[in-house]
């Protein structure tokens, strides 16, 4: 926690992450070769897949800190879980919005009730529910119920990941399928993936800090009100 707080104070981290985003965009459009089948549209893949993997990580962090909260009952764990879920939701929105644009070109349809798409939509809806629940309840109840929902919602992540295998759909490539990926494409994707991980970490620190200050403020304000009364 102390390391996270220390890092968040550093402006260099924000500058580096912003620079990495621009480098990623440059590499995608100028360095990575055009894929033979999907041609230019394949370049959506770099952000789409990287965002999808970051979603797994973000909801994984939410899952771990939800469990930790239920065991230790520390409010900081709940705040970190909520921050991770919020950023995961942003990345999940990116996946759900960029996917249909790709699908329109590749499958000639904006949306289809295919296993992976449907399970991703369910995942997104569950975390929307997570935030509705958080806003509807107060303090201890909010923390406990949202931790439980965070744990339950995470079980959809492996379903999303293994959906193509479980339901044998032909639209998304199967896990581990051998794709004709050129070295420039692989290198670009690796850099984009690292950029997304750093971006996730930076946003997590920022959001966690904000939530922590908010929580402290609420505590002080409550105490102040009690003193006044």
């Amino acid at each position, binding site marked *: 926690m102390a390391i996270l707080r220390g890092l968040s104070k550093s402006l260099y981290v924000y500058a580096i992450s912003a620079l990495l985003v621009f480098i990623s*965009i440059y590499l995608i459009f100028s360095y990575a070769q055009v894929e033979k089948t999907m041609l230019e549209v394949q370049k*959506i893949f770099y952000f789409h897949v990287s965002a999808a993997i970051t979603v797994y990580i973000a909801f994984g962090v939410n899952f771990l800190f939800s469990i930790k909260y239920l065991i230790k009952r520390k409010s900081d764990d709940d705040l970190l879980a909520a921050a991770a879920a919020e950023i995961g939701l942003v990345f999940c929105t990116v996946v759900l919005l960029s996917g249909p644009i790709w699908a329109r070109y590749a499958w000639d349809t904006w949306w289809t009730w295919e296993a992976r798409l449907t399970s991703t939509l369910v995942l997104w809806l569950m975390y929307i529910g997570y935030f509705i629940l958080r806003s509807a309840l107060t303090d201890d109840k909010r923390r406990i119920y949202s931790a439980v929902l965070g744990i339950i919602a995470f079980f959809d992540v492996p379903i999303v990941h293994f959906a193509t295998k479980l339901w044998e759909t032909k639209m998304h490539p199967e896990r581990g399928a051998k794709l004709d990926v050129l070295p420039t494409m692989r290198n670009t994707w690796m850099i984009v993936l690292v950029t997304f991980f750093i971006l996730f970490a930076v946003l997590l620190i920022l959001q966690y800090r904000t939530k922590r200050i908010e929580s402290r403020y609420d505590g002080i304000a409550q105490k102040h009100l009690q003193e006044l009364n």
Partner: protein
Amino acid sequence: MRIVIVLCCLIVIALLFSALQVPIIDISEIEKAINDVKSESQVNIEDEEALKKTVNLVVKELESDQRTRLKYLVSAYLVIWLVFMLYLVRLGRQQQALDQRLAQLEQETSDSQDESIE
């Protein structure tokens, strides 16, 4: 913060729209390429006009296809960028509101301290 966001948006939009610029091949270039191929391969082409017309149509179709693909690509990246920017704006507003609340609390605390001294 706002200036940085607006600047980032402008840079990315400029980058993406520059990607949309498909190199347009004009007729003179097509004619030159046909003449080059003819002289290199020494193939006798009888109806030169028909050949030029066909090549021209093929080039136009390829350009149109490429434009369509680039439109999908650019719109996907714009949507992604928009989501991130909206989230950053939200974060900025959240922090601004928090600063205001803290300033208000500080003011109230100092006021109540003054009252207790009096």
